[in-house]
């Protein structure tokens, strides 16, 4: 009897919680993020997208990843080439396949991107791809908005949902 009651309590509370959830129960996302997408490998050619979300001040216009700001698994990834998307052009890029370190500068001269893809990395893969194969280091990345102010409040998300 007590057991059933307790279970009933739990269910009732859960339903109550549920009823409170009808309707938009989540705040709009305001997290400013820069992140790699999922590497997609076909055969030995892979590509991975670099995206931003909720960039302020007119969007992201310039990104400078200093040396070692981007690291990748050098044992399974090589031959990286970078291509800008959505108005971004690659000003400089350097990838050291021996140490798995990369650096690059992307500029969006005309405007800025608030949410969306900014670059695509194509590479030669040998082995199974995982999310952790490409990583960014926040302290070695400079972001500049469309209004030429530095963007400092941004996060490198750690969790992804697929």
């Amino acid at each position: 009897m007590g057991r059933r009651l307790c279970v009933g309590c739990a269910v009732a509370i859960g339903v109550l919680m549920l009823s409170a959830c009808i309707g938009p129960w989540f705040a709009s996302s305001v997290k400013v993020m820069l992140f790699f997408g999922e590497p997609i490998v076909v055969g030995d050619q892979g590509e991975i997208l670099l995206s931003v979300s909720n960039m302020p001040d007119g969007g992201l216009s310039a990104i400078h990843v200093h040396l070692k700001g981007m690291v990748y698994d050098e044992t399974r990834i090589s031959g990286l080439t970078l291509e800008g998307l959505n108005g971004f052009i690659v000003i400089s890029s350097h990838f050291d396949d021996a140490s798995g370190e990369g650096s690059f500068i992307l500029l969006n001269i005309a405007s800025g991107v608030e949410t969306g893809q900014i670059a695509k990395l194509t590479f030669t893969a040998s082995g199974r791809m995982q999310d952790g194969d490409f990583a960014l280091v926040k302290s070695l990345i400079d972001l500049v908005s469309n209004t030429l102010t530095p963007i400092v409040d941004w996060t490198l998300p750690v969790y992804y949902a697929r």
Partner: protein
Amino acid sequence: MTRTPLLIALAAVVGFGCTLSASGTLFGEAEIGLTSNTISFVDDLSVDLMLGYDLGEAIVWTESLVVLPATWVWQAFGATARVGGYGLTTNVLFGASTAEYLYAEMILGISIARIDASLHVAQLSDAVVGGPEGGWALRIEADAGPFDLVSTTEFGAQIDDENNDGITIFHAPTSQSRHYATDPRIAGVGFTGQQTRLAYLDFCCANRIEAALAITCNGFQDLRFTVAGLGTGIPWLFIDADLSFAVDQKKLTLSPGLQLGEAVCLDLIASLDTGGGRSVNGIEFHGAELLCTLGDVTVRDITLLDLSEYVITAESHGSRIEKLADAISNRHDFYPEYWQLLSIRYEREGCCGDSLSVLLNTYFERNSTNLFDIAFMHAEAVVPLARSLSFTLAAEFEHPSMRELVFGFSIAW
């Protein structure tokens, strides 16, 4: 919005706390994983701890994963309760700090007679790329004789089934992932879709007919009739038929398939080469699988002839042959470069009632400079040590050194 899932979890815990007085079993599992590389023996050390309380009708557990030295991957809480026809499952996943919850899910199920109804509620926080999202869905399954009915009414969430995949949350730096059934990443909070599937078995010559209706917020989406395994009179040829009605399109798809019959020892993986057209040009052989059981030992050999279309999935995904495109889309781990697998499994009843199992997978790759082309080895062992205590060990060797070592304990008391 961190309170709601907490409260849900708390409710579950409180709800079942009353049953603590009853006898229950505490159980725990610990898994320690070591990965190494050519430079250092220990590159990564991960610890996966699960602690739970089994009350019979309810199980409450928590699991946390830490990758040393400093990465606490996540902390998961869950509770499952089943009383009579009611079931309640709650899962909450927290990230590195308690204030940052990642995902919360609650599944309330009712089974009455032959009808299973379940209400899925899920919420994904904005700490996860792809969020924040939330939604719920109601699924009703009914099994009445030859009829199977599955109806899912979606309110901003999807439930995993053969069309949908649920949600997998990845931790990028360590590539760890967790899979949950309810995917709230459907835009909208009101009615977002309705999928109804009715399957009827044994209709005339068809093995199974399915009718699926999908309705979204925008209205009717499509209606599909699927028949699988239509016999054609040719013993090895069967046809899958798919008739779909979309808003402005009607499509009939006939897919010929090859059925090679019962496998005794050797399974051939072959497919019909239709050239994309309406003719059958030939039979393509992609590989073969040999399965042989000798007493407690099971030997399996997979050989792939064509790595561009079929791959061997990893042991965590069953070590099967799968189409490359399917493996990629299903996000199954696979080895794109190994064409042969030799798997030896030994299983027998161990002492104290648990089973002892040892598995050794050896993978071979093409054109390597290794002896016999051995490239990779994966070994697993589960050793029961005592009653309610077992030891698990997993190791991977990638030429020329060991790559990963995982060992764990499983305790129940």
